[in-house]
């Protein structure tokens, strides 16, 4: 049966239904069902978040200064970004300003996360959608070396290096114990790389695995550990001491040197490995420009990386802020997270109930009561789902909308907003990549465009790391050692009631936290996270979300092997633990949640 959605997509669920559950190489639990037509082209897509943890219910009644630790545990992949959002939220509610050094250190930690997360995503979560590991076995090591040396100055590129690696890979495959590569889609016709490019990519998969553990040491130095470093309302917990007694117990010259050394290596790896690989892979896939979905229409970014401490205005934010509607790049709308009519969440197709489900609710006023039930046309039973009924409730994700519009968020959204604003940081590298690949700007609106934007952003972030680390050192040089403002640390200094909002751009996209504080305790806490935007189910008007939109129109070579589906889903870098959350309405008895 054909349906036209208000946001311009045609849905037809009459063809053969294909179920992918679990969707792997993501964070958390996701199920996707699609219908294909007779030519195996996807004509309907259904995205179901399949986990719910209730972190925000748990936050009620707790100390707002602890919220960063709880919300950080929403996600251990984008570790730190929820914590940063949370301390900003509490600081916003209580009117707490932070020292300039704390702003620089927070930016360094956030940008370290970007580089780490984007590289791990590309090589370890996404690469196998483009790279055929088994094909690498038939590569000529000499030709691989020539290819590698033709695109990069990266030193690990000799014929012997690739020969050794290929030997190791060969014996691994021959052992019959394929480990994580078992049952992969090797030999699938949607793989387009020659064996040499595959071998090079496998080498870099392993190199990136080695290197990622080095990058996170920046978090370890400033935050004590990774994953899940420590943060602080009012600043950062690490004190600076470069001259006095006990300097070895604080951020000192040795620590600053270690951070600086790692930053240098991150810049080199991004520019000599990640970007050349992205460009090489993209050059073989530039005819596979499916997966654009909402990106050519509606994109949203909150902005991040404040140049100046405590200034979260668009002018201070180095990552762009704004909304684009209907693909009109000439107009970038202002985004106001405190406006009750802008960000709202709906639950008509989510496993929650509202008193009035025809209305969307702003996070400060949201209501959440879990309500798991399958639609009348679902196949299977409540504990054995065979096919979802998307006409009813079908996901643990809510449907957030901006002024009623379904939006895409993430690296591509940020780059489109920055591009539309004409900021050289975003237009110049984008135009260069497009020119090098010989594709028009519209090629950005695709699975490949999403993947490319992430790589460009990684390079940008690596240079911001260097910038803010230098800024920190300059500030210390000028005699400013402050890392925390404790004037409002004590709850006695707080107003009886307060509310606030904080935001970041998580690696996966726009992230906002909203808080209400009453009598020094959390009265309400709500997170609207990137994958909730991208992976959202339908809203009452029938608008589909970014995952569902991106899958439409994609031809599948073999419907029993969902390679094209996971390729496009992975381009969003889904994070389901982030997206499935809940807020407790005022005075809700938790017994209601403990059902059946």
């Amino acid at each position, binding site marked *: 049966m054909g349906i036209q959605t208000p946001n311009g997509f045609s849905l037809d669920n009459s063809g053969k239904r294909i179920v992918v559950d679990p969707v792997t190489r*993501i964070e958390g639990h996701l199920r996707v069902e699609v219908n294909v037509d007779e030519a195996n082209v996807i004509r309907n897509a259904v995205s179901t978040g399949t986990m719910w943890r209730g972190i925000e219910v748990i936050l009620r009644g707790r100390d707002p200064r602890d919220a960063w630790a709880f919300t950080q545990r929403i996600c*251990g992949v984008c570790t730190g970004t929820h914590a940063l959002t949370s301390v900003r939220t509490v600081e916003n509610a209580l009117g707490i300003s932070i020292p300039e050094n704390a702003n620089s250190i927070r930016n360094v930690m956030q940008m370290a996360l970007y580089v780490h997360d984007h590289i791990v995503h590309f090589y370890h979560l996404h690469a196998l959608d483009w790279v055929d590991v088994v094909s690498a076995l038939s590569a000529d090591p000499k030709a691989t070396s020539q290819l590698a040396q033709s695109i990069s100055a990266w030193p690990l590129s000799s014929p012997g290096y690739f020969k050794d690696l290929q030997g190791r890979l060969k014996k691994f495959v021959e052992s019959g114990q*394929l480990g994580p590569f078992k049952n992969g889609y090797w030999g699938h016709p949607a793989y387009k790389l020659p064996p040499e490019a595959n071998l090079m990519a496998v080498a870099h998969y392993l190199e990136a695995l080695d290197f990622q553990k080095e990058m996170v040491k920046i978090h370890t130095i400033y935050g004590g550990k990774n994953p899940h470093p420590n943060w602080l309302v009012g600043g950062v917990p690490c004190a600076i001491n470069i001259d006095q007694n006990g300097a070895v117990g604080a951020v000192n010259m040795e620590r600053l040197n270690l951070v600086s050394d790692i930053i240098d290596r991150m810049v080199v790896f991004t520019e000599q490995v990640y970007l050349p690989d992205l460009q090489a892979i993209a050059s073989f896939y530039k005819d596979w420009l499916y997966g654009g979905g909402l990106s050519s229409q509606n994109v949203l970014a909150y902005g991040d990386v404040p140049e100046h401490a405590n200034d979260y205005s668009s002018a201070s934010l180095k990552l762009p802020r704004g909304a684009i509607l209907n693909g009109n790049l000439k107009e970038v709308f202002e985004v106001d997270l405190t406006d009750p009519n802008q960000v709202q969440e709906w639950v008509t197709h989510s496993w929650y109930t509202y008193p009035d489900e025809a209305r969307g609710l702003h996070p400060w006023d949201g209501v959440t009561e879990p309500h*798991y039930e399958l639609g009348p046309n679902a196949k299977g039973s*409540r504990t054995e789902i065979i096919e979802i009924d998307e006409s009813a409730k079908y996901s643990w994700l809510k449907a957030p909308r901006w002024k009623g519009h379904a939006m895409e968020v993430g690296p591509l959204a940020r780059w489109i907003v920055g591009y539309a604003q004409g900021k050289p940081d975003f237009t110049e590298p984008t135009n260069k990549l497009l020119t090098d690949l010989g594709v028009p700007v519209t090629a950005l609106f695709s699975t490949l465009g999403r993947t490319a934007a992430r790589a460009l952003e990684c390079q940008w972030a690596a240079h911001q790391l260097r910038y803010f680390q230098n800024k920190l050192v300059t500030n210390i040089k000028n005699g400013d050692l402050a890392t925390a403002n404790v004037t409002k640390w004590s709850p006695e200094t707080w107003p009886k009631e307060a509310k606030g909002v904080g935001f970041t751009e998580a690696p996966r996209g726009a992230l906002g936290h909203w808080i209400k504080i009453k009598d020094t305790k959390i009265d309400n806490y709500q997170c609207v996270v990137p994958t909730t935007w991208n992976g959202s189910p339908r809203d009452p008007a029938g608008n589909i979300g970014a995952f569902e939109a991106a899958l439409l129109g994609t031809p599948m070579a073999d419907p029993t092997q969902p390679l094209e589906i996971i390729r496009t889903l992975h381009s969003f870098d889904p994070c389901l633990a982030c997206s499935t959350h809940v807020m407790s309405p005022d005075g809700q008895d938790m017994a209601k*949640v403990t059902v059946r």
Partner: protein
Amino acid sequence: MGEGIETFYQVIRRQGITRRSFTKFCSLTAASLGLGATGASTIAHALETKPRVPVIWMHGLECTCCSESFIRSAHPLVKDVILSMISLDYDDTIMAAAGHQAEAILVDTKEKYKGQYVLAVEGNPPLNEDGMYCIDGGRPFVERLKWMAADAAAVLAWGSCASWGCVQAAKPNPTHAVPIDQVIRDKPIVKVPGCPPIAEVMTAVITYINTFGRLPDLDRQGRPKMFYSQRIHDKCYRRGHFDAGQFVESWDDDGARKGYCLYKMGCRGPTTYNACSTVRWNNGVSFPIQSGHGCIGCSEDGFWDNGPFYNRLSNVRQFGIEANADQIGGVAAGVVGTAVAVHAGVTVVKRLTTKRNGNGDSGPHGG
């Protein structure tokens, strides 16, 4: 040795790694496990003669921080763990296959390696809503978990979620998330708590099982004694400042810059059993206290409900030294002995109060 099954030693020899490097690797591994020279030769022998153990890594309600931590391992490198030490046949976070192809691996492993594979569990099962707060392949995760555990040789409970329940089980635990030992009752379970656990602790536990063919010695809570038998406070490099009564009184104060003790800022080091102050994090770079924030006790059962994190421990029931820090601060020089005595007392109390039902000492030969 049957076709398709190779020993670790054969694999690395073929990869061109010398006997000398191999021996060095074994020595380092032995050193990291505290096993000494005899340990090194035992490891070498084990790795030369055993095939790679299949490992199935399942995810329940969690945040994936345990997987992220695991790939941070510096010794051994995780690529060597995956390519040469274990056969990580199923792990939703990194595996190539999805959907039916992924599910087929579970069935295949149960049949082919019945009673021989290790089940590693990250996260935990929710029991409310018929288990459908965590759906895996259209069914409740808890069912999948029990089904895969049934034919496993042993179970690893990664992190505080699988071990204790962690953040989703904090009050009021809306999904009724439970530690895995509440639903897996007939298998030996090694708990490796922490949010997340330290990378090298995780790989050491796997390497230990692989090497010695048995589970490590466990304490009464099911944790490997080698990493969880001492409190962070016992081995903290700031301990001297605690004993001397030198405390951070406020963030970024003079004491903070000098690296004084964080007890008054809420540090949970005195009640937390973990290896952070010895092994440290990310190849020994630092650990929370070294970077200026108190320990939040993330490897302890119920640590989320022992807050607020910035209230000093005198507010926590099982800690018995209320008000002592202030007194110590007043008479710094003479109190060292007192502090030690008090700590010894706390240890006894802690032991008695943390004993859990149905979770006794699994002993060294549980596997």
